[in-house]
């Protein structure tokens, strides 16, 4: 094509996966146009100035599983990706000040016994081995089981082989705990309540599960996949998560992609079951025969495509995707660095966790089942300004906390409950960090309802669909639609609703781009 206006691929939504797709496709020589509704790139991986002078990662605030191949392929370091902190330790906060420090496989704390230390070392190593098996398929499309080709068969064989080569007993153990709940597995392996609480939180973060829900070991393994990607703990990108997105965007742009922000795609245009282009909310029409949607599968099919363009069985499966957003985000602008009882000032920049024991976490979850927010919530806290002074005015700080449980379908409605829940959270923080309240200059609570309106994800679900066994691998997002292609010719999905799922990993974007290139070679 010589037409300078010709576009090979339109990508709807500049979330990190959309950006990764754009970069890879541009790298392959395709002309890519990325359309983003908001006025900045990154989707949920963004940094926002929520109060004058105070900035914070809007959604996820740690990076722990960005795939190294992507970093390398897209030369993200050259495009501005740098870290204010890496391999952060986790401090499991205890109300009595006897916290536990978790650094990789090593734990330390006043009440920690030698057997705790030994048990955790073993447990950590086992989870890492299992995570490695799990990660086998992440960098490829999920294998089909029946109508499969050679690539699918190889992928399945690789998965089986990686499981088997751990040894007979280890494979048996993986098969056993694959579907089990984290609560039992923690009790089988560990004694320390505070440690188990912190691990419970890790297993359920971002999902509609409690530690006693079967399947939650998967949640833990899913996070631990990051360790096989070279992260020995969460990292804080300089400038917040927004800069990860900016780096990918810069890479994509340098490879030739065009990014237009402030351009909301109203619908995907379809003619004879094939993509014809997109229509923006201002009526502008962009013609194009290939579109990738970075939106979640449910909103892609219900809104951008429209169920009438699809068949009933397919629509039914899309409508039945389980996605109950449960996660909220608390942002505090602080006049000074808060003090946590019993916490060394050097440790305040660590990943701080409030989840005193697994039963506490489970009780917190109970409320979510009935459309109530937790009376005693769990929190994952970061004070990124400790590592990155650009986020707050000199001497001042921002506190960012991922909070559960805050169900999207709150009975009383979020507009009513936002302040109430925020006050409850601040009280909880105050109990661990006396005096914190007085330091608060400004605050913001983003409920799942806010996530939905801000980022467009259905029910404000962070992973674009529950990450559970029934929506995993070839079942993600649903049977019959798991390999990034859709029944609409030329329409692909690259959001976290597809395999391998959520977190800032970038692999969905990469897998989708690869699929498009394969399919594209044989179509039109």
């Amino acid at each position, binding site marked *: 094509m010589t037409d300078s206006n010709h576009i090979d691929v339109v990508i709807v939504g500049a979330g990190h996966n959309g950006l990764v797709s754009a970069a890879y496709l541009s790298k392959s020589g395709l002309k890519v146009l990325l359309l983003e509704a908001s006025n900045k790139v990154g989707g949920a991986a963004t940094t926002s100035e929520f109060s004058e002078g105070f900035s914070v990662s809007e959604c996820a605030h740690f990076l722990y599983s960005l795939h190294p191949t992507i970093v390398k392929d897209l030369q993200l370091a050259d495009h501005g990706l740098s870290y204010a902190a890496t391999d952060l330790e986790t401090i499991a906060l205890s109300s009595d000040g006897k916290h536990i420090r978790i650094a990789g496989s090593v734990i330390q704390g006043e009440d920690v016994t030698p057997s705790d230390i030994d048990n955790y070392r073993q447990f950590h190593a086992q989870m890492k081995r299992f995570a490695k098996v799990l990660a086998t398929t992440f960098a490829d499309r999920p294998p089909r*089981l029946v109508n499969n080709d050679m690539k699918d068969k190889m992928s399945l064989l690789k998965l089986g082989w990686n499981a088997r080569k751990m040894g007979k007993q280890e494979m048996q153990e993986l098969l056993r705990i694959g579907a089990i709940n984290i609560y039992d597995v923690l009790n089988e392996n560990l004694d320390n309540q505070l440690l188990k609480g912190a691990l419970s939180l890790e297993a359920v973060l971002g999902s509609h599960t409690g530690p006693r829900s*079967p399947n939650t070991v998967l949640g833990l393994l899913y996070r631990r996949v990051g360790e096989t990607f070279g992260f020995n703990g969460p990292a804080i990108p300089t400038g917040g998560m927004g800069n990860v997105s900016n780096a990918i965007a810069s890479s994509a742009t340098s490879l030739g992609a065009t990014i237009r922000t402030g351009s909301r795609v109203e619908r995907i245009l379809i003619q004879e079951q094939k993509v014809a282009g997109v229509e923006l909310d201002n009526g502008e029409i962009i013609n194009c025969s290939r579109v990738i949607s970075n939106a979640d599968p449910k909103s892609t099919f219900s809104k951008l495509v429209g169920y009438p363009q699809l068949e009933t069985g397919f629509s039914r499966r899309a409508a*039945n995707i389980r996605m109950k957003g449960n996660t909220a985000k608390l942002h505090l602008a602080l006049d000074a660095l808060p003090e946590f009882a019993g916490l060394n000032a050097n440790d305040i920049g660590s990943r701080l966790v409030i989840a005193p024991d697994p039963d506490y976490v489970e009780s917190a979850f109970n409320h979510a*089942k009935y459309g109530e927010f937790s009376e005693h919530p769990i929190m994952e806290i970061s004070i990124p300004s400790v590592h990155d002074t650009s986020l707050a005015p000199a001497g001042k700080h921002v506190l960012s906390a991922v909070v559960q449980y805050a169900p999207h379908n709150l009975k009383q409605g979020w507009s009513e409950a936002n302040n109430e829940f925020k006050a409850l959270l601040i009280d909880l923080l105050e109990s661990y960090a006396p005096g914190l309240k007085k330091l608060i200059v400004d605050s913001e609570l983003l409920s799942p309802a806010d996530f939905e309106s801000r980022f467009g994800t259905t029910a404000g679900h962070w992973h674009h669909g529950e990450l559970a066994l029934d929506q995993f691998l070839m079942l993600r997002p649903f049977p*019959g639609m798991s390999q990034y292609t859709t029944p609409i010719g030329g329409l692909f999905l690259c959001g976290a609703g597809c395999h391998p799922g959520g977190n800032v990993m970038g692999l969905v974007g990469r897998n989708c781009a690869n699929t498009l290139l394969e399919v594209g070679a044989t179509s039109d």
Partner: protein
Amino acid sequence: MKKYDAIVIGAGHNGLTNAAYLAKAGLDVLVLEKNPYIGGATVSRELHEGWMYSNCSYVCSLLRPEISRDLNLPKFGLQVIPYVGGVTFKRDGDYFGNYDDHERQYREIARHSKRDANAYERYTADVTKQTRFIRPFLLRTPPDPTSFKPRDIQELLYLAKSFYNLGEKVLGDTLRFWTMSIGDFLDEYFETDVIKCHLAGSGIIGTALGVYSPGTAYVLLHHYMGEVDGSVGAWGFARGGMGSVAKALAGAFQSFGGEIRADAEVDRILATGGRTSGVVLANGDEIYADIVVSNLDPKRTFLDIMAEEDLPASVVKQARNFKIRGSSGKLNIALDGLPTFHGLPAKSPLMTGDMHFIDSLERMERAYDDWKNGTWSQDPYVDMLIPTQVDPTMAPTGKHMMSVFVQYAPPKLATGEWTDKDRDAFGKTVIDQIGTYSPNFKDLILHAEVRTPQDIEDEVGLTEGNIFQGELTFDQLLFNRPFPGYAQYRGPIKGMYMCSSGTHPGGGVMSAPGANAAREILMDLNHPSTVPEAYPDD
């Protein structure tokens, strides 16, 4: 002292089935039972004069028809009568009934929602698909997925082929079904809470999970895969109570020359040099055999009646980690007459079926939260039946016996062990719930036996009172039951086997574990199998 060919510990239905098939092969078999009566949890007991209680298991469907016919159980007195009906009462005075006639059932669902009435057809078809998939595996030994032995590979291929034959989408649905919650599953079909509720019960009975816990859809399947006379999913009463099943199995066993000794509690399985040589009874008697089969659950088997030093450390750990949670209680009630229920027409055909008093999934889930908090459900899910409407043998004419299965009750309370006071309070909770819907119920009560999980454990020997001898969750099914590496009925020492519901395919009065274990034992003895193969599926 006489040496037997085989000793089976525990005269529950699986122990008796196992013993019967070994005896049928000509082995000299002794069954040892700690209680003065046989049957384990498959018993009928006269605990109130003139009334026979099925005081543990209470209805029959899962018993493999191949076994029932092969052992000629009808000849030994077993008669299973199908029952129909069933009703879930609503708080607003209405109810949802389960009629056996297709069209009356359609209209009953349609009374609540026409859409649901039609969706029920799709639900039935989809669940039947899953049922047909699982049934052929019941009388097969699960393969070891880590093994390279020809037999395991062959069985794995059989499994893989069964999967493959489903096709991509149905296979996907099957994998989803096995891993999702019954609540989520039902939400995909129905809009009416009471209908979901009526169906969801099968997903939690005997299970320490809530209706929204992943894995409970499979538990529902476990209750759907049985049959009465070829009618898959149907349930029936054993005439004379569930003890008739045990009695018939014992009759078959004895007809092959087998010997049963009651009041003979096993203290320990003898093991030397990595093989068993018999058992020691609680009274100190030693009885010898080269083969010892335990019908006790895996925890009791490996942690109580086997010495830690006789076992590989890994097995002890696996046994400790085995999930066997008490979550159910039981009331058995002698009634002076047939109770009436609010809103329900007198003599309604619905009353011969299972009755429930909880009308929303939220209430069911909250009942589970109580269990997690270490108390019995304050608003429990009960599965209540009055078999004497059909069975004339269990109570004096005109009087009735009521069986009330209660979900949930924890094995231990947050306050500590169950006390008599707690038991009374638990019984009162259940009786009050029923009383709310039945105006004359309380006045009709002549006698009530209230059984906590602790009582069930003490009397029957089921750890924590778990009715399935181990949770029926994915981590403990097929080649993971009771635990990986030991799913083929062989114990860790030579000559020692397992045949309880703690092995594949799990709990319910199915007799499949007992039969499957016998097949493996006979194989090890190079003896032709006496165990029937499953009927080919239609």
